[in-house]
């Protein structure tokens, strides 16, 4: 047993682990140190091996593309009957990307579930048993989910835009239109940030129901509640809610009183960073 401490002496070689001298160790198992990259690979295996991942991401893409196309074709067919007020507000870019309203819910739910599913089943103990420093798990889950969401929803947003313009026909536009590229990339970025925020909420709240309720409350309920605030308070609160700030960053014609695109992005990133920082602090301190 002279090699009892071999686990911590080997650095990157990995061969240090093969030198056990106990009997039965002829078929020594090669074991490498835990690194951030290996935790990412592990999270990738986890992400791919749950069916709910595929279903939920498919739902997000379908919502993004399908709703955009449906609204565009419905708008084109009813163009002559549209009230003047709606016509004045009409923007072909924003119309084709309207599916984000639903897609954000799918992306958010999956982000919460990636974490709370582990707490609910007890898997989190195996996860932290294998990566006891814990923070690499937070970064891996967040980063991986962000990458997957961004790639998939960028493609979906592009499909929604291009198809939507086809459905709009003469009322449509092209990617060279003012703000069109920013809108397509921006909406994918918005959904990605919502996904990251949801992962952080999952680590903070640790229960599926609580995490999803909090997310939906912020995205869906808070803007409505904000409308009930005294009107001189509203400009100081409403534009800074994650949904409104996000819409400011990609919409060609965001709602009245919204922030600039850059400010919207900055505000939404702040939400995500603060949530992740809080999750990191609590993750390191709380019992698993």
């Amino acid at each position, binding site marked *: 047993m002279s090699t009892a401490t071999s686990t911590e002496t080997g650095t990157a070689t990995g061969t240090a682990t093969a030198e056990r001298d106990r009997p039965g160790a002829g078929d020594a198992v090669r074991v490498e140190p835990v690194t951030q990259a*290996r935790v990412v690979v592990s999270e990738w295996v986890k992400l791919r091996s*749950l069916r709910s991942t595929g279903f939920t991401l498919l739902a997000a893409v379908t919502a993004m593309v399908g709703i955009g196309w449906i609204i565009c074709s419905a708008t084109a067919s009813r163009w002559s009957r549209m009230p003047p007020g709606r016509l004045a507000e009409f923007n072909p870019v924003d119309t084709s990307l309207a599916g984000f309203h639903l897609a954000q819910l799918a992306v958010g739910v999956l982000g919460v579930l990636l974490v709370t599913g582990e707490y609910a089943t*007890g898997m989190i103990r195996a996860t932290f048993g294998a990566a006891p420093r814990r923070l690499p798990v937070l970064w891996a889950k967040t980063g991986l989910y962000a990458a997957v969401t961004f790639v998939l929803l960028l493609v979906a947003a592009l499909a929604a835009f291009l198809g939507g313009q086809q459905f709009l026909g003469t009322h449509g536009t092209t990617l060279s239109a003012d703000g069109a590229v920013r809108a397509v990339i921006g909406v994918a970025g918005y959904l990605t940030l919502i996904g990251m925020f949801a992962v952080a909420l999952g680590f903070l709240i640790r229960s599926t129901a609580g995490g999803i309720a909090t997310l939906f409350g912020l995205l869906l309920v808070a803007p409505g509640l904000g409308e009930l605030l005294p009107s001189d308070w509203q400009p100081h609160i409403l534009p800074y809610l994650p949904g409104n700030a996000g819409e400011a960053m990609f919409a060609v014609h965001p709602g009245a009183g919204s922030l600039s695109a850059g400010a919207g992005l900055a505000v939404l990133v702040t939400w995500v960073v603060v949530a992740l920082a809080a999750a990191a602090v609590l993750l390191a301190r709380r019992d698993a």
Partner: protein
Amino acid sequence: MVCRDGTAAVPSVGVNRQKDPLIMIEARNLTKRYGDKTAVDDLTFTVRPGIVTGFLGPNGAGKSTTMRLILGLDAPTSGTVTVAGKPYREHARPLRTVGALLEARAIHTSRSAYNHLRALAATHGIARSRVDDVVEMVGLQDVARKRAGGFSLGMGQRLGIASALLADPETLLLDEPVNGLDPEGIRWIRDLLKSLAAEGRTVFVSSHLMSEMALTAEHVIVVGRGRLIADMPMAQLIAGASADTVVVVSPDAAALGRALAADGVVVTGLDATTLEVAGLTAAQVGDRARDLRFSIHGLAPKQASLEEAFMEMTRDEVEYHAETPTPGRAA
């Protein structure tokens, strides 16, 4: 502290512990409180390699909490616990240092056993062939591709053991591993634990069943309500625990009982004609009865079972008695 044969080279516990790499798990004044409830109360013990060490205690005694503290899943309120000289989380290859099976299942129910093991293996760069090996080792090859949520308790335990063995660990930490296993599985676990210990590994196994531990463990640490009750070789525990009694049947039991009762002798009436006598041998009871001219219809020595000895030892420390069936979160 008595050293077992075969471990004569191991220095006696208490001498220079921290510098001895052979001493694999060391808890010092380990205490964990949840709110105002103390789950683990000032535990100090050492678990050595090369033998199976049993961790015994009734449900709610703090066994699972102690195991979570060893793995760093929960942080101690005070005190420390180290594995091979440092806290678990500071090891570069934690799964190589400790392979753990925790009582509550630590498996995502929607994932297959195979993918569960692959995800764990990936954190340590362990090859797929090793995943196949451990799946075969625990006999799950036929169901490894199925959802772990559909597993029976016994299959779940086998998967947990496969996870524990994945990185060929130096220390095994198993919380109630025989739970839900059939007799064949229990026997398999016993043999596995003994062979792992024989290879020089540290094996720390919790159980609330004394009889099970008696067959597997060479050394035993007994806890009750989070406190240390005993830390000794199993043989010593068994020897000290045998509070033997004599069962006497006599038509005049009540009078015989009064006659036998003396300092150090406890007589309990079981029914109108039967007595249980502690503190005298069967021969002594027979001789006294003859001298006093009592008629004896039956005389039998009764050896206390291990389970009784264990219950006696922990009686004051049992948190949940039968009449208050509170489910214990931390066993």
